[in-house]
């Protein structure tokens, strides 16, 4: 099984330290959510993991091999990324957009296997009705599902998402979270995502990493991480934690 090890990683933009001495390990296939206030370095951390950014210090390894020894193409066969916004100048159909995700594996020739993988994902994500629509004419929720589908056809061992649910309504957010949680276990892949909503995270995440000032503040299950004290220290707000169906639920207090 793939394991990612982050060892003592620091990162700074110019002179501003964003990540400070972060050490983490991802070894089981589940849905891990990274939470924390704005500007705390969540996105920077995931971008270090998928090599969009290069840490100033420390190392990140996949199965013991240093990330910097991978070529972009080799890495893309094992790791997929879903950015939080997408743009496309020229129009293409939804199925074409998803098919692009096969690039790392297929190169120039689109094989029947590529088409079948795309077809399966379209079915799995319930995108049949949209397959021939223009990608640019979709709603935010539909677009997000297509981009996730594109990441999944890469057949990654690790799927990284940067706030995939930030502009979706509650129902869409829950659908996607539930899907990712199931998918990580059924397909035996690691899903690491940056998330904002504490209650949705608490409901669906198997593991939560709470960040504060560029460091890992708390790391564990929802019960371990979502405490009134942690939320006060990290977000600076008072809250009350109640138990709903065995999961901690955060109620924000006015003062």
């Amino acid at each position: 099984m793939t394991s990612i090890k982050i060892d003592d990683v620091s990162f700074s933009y110019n002179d501003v330290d964003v990540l400070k001495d972060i050490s983490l390990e991802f070894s089981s296939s589940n849905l891990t959510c990274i939470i924390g206030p704005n500007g705390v370095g969540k996105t920077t951390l995931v971008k270090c993991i998928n090599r969009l950014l290069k840490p100033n210090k420390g190392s990140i390894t996949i199965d013991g091999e240093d990330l910097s020894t991978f070529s972009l193409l080799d890495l893309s066969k094992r790791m997929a990324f879903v950015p939080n916004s997408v743009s496309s100048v020229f129009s293409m159909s939804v199925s074409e957009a998803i098919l692009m995700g096969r690039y790392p594996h297929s190169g120039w020739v689109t094989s029947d296997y590529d088409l079948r993988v795309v077809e399966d994902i379209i079915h799995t994500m319930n995108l049949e009705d949209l397959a021939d629509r223009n990608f640019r004419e979709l709603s935010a929720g539909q677009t997000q599902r297509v981009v996730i589908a594109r990441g999944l056809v890469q057949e990654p061992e690790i799927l990284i998402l940067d706030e995939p649910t930030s502009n979706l309504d509650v129902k869409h957010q829950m659908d996607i979270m539930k899907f990712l949680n199931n998918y990580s276990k059924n397909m035996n892949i690691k899903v690491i995502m940056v998330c904002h909503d504490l209650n949705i995270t608490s409901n669906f995440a198997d593991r939560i990493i709470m960040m504060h000032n560029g460091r890992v503040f708390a790391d564990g299950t929802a019960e371990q991480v979502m405490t009134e004290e942690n939320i006060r220290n990290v977000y600076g707000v008072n809250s009350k934690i109640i138990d709903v169906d065995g999961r901690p639920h955060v109620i924000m207090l006015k003062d």
Partner: protein
Amino acid sequence: MKSNTEISIPTLPAETSPETNFRLSYRSKFLKRVAFISVCAIICFIVSLYSVTLGSYGLTMGDVFHYIAQAIMGVDLSENNAAYVVLNLRLPRIIAAIVCGAALAICGAAMQSMMKNPLADPYTMGISSGAGFGAALAIIFGIEFIAGGGIIINAFICALIPALVILFLSKVRRATPTMMILCGISLMYVFNAMTQLFMLVSSPDDLSAVYTWMVGSLADVSWSDLAIISIITLAGSIYIQIMANQLNIMGIGDESAKTMGVNVDRQRLIILMVITLVAASVVSFTGVIGFVGLVAPHIVRIVLGADNKFLIPGSAVFGAVLLLVSDMVARTIVAPTMLPVGVITACLGGPIFMYLILRNSKEVWS
């Protein structure tokens, strides 16, 4: 009945799944696209044969076939006027129209996809104005960068300058598409200003020569010129076609592209260099033939979609037809005077383009 927004629980991919709508529609689309490209190629062939018979020296298709066949078989035709017209006046020009049209359209298509900018074409990068500047240097001042090279070598070298500047700047900082385009446009202004300055002090004859060069013409392309243009174009288009998938992926944004295994920054520079080389080789022999590079890819995109695997060959054949027809009109409309083909491409391409934009309710680009 599942609602559209609901996402089902994952299912593992089946070992063999039945042929369903998606794969069928992918295949039928594929066939449709290949059909379009083939039809354009056939039209191109027929039009070019017809085109050889046109002109002040009356010839029939039969004559044309006859002389071409004889020339291929190595019969000496040097004393035959009709053969001379076919083989040395009309054929090179017609083949030049096909090759240059294809080359400019491929460059335009690749440029637009890579820069994520529907207005990009080889000329936006300052290639044409660079070439114009080089040509003006040779025509007005007789300055030659390589002795004996004349207008062509000058134009070629100056057309490469913008790409070299971008290459140099990218060593200092990341070359984003915006930076590349702004860089090309600013160089374009510099080159144009210099050329205009030269034109102010030039004699009327030189002025007319520079002007003719700036609107582009296929009249003076010889067999040996054609060989050079064809080799560079062929090599360039094969490379760009191989890169078609990478071009597609560059269109979805740099970060996404990197996480899909495309080294965007490096690849963009390499493709830019290839495009510059191809466009510069065309421009330096024919002068600035505008509009084909910009319009052909857009028209083809309306029919074939934005997938570069089909867009590149589609644009090539369409660009060839466009330039071929334009040149045919340029040769015949006010015969025996021959108009510069650049004027016709714009006059013909502009209205077609506008009609297609207006007719097409679906936006193909934004």
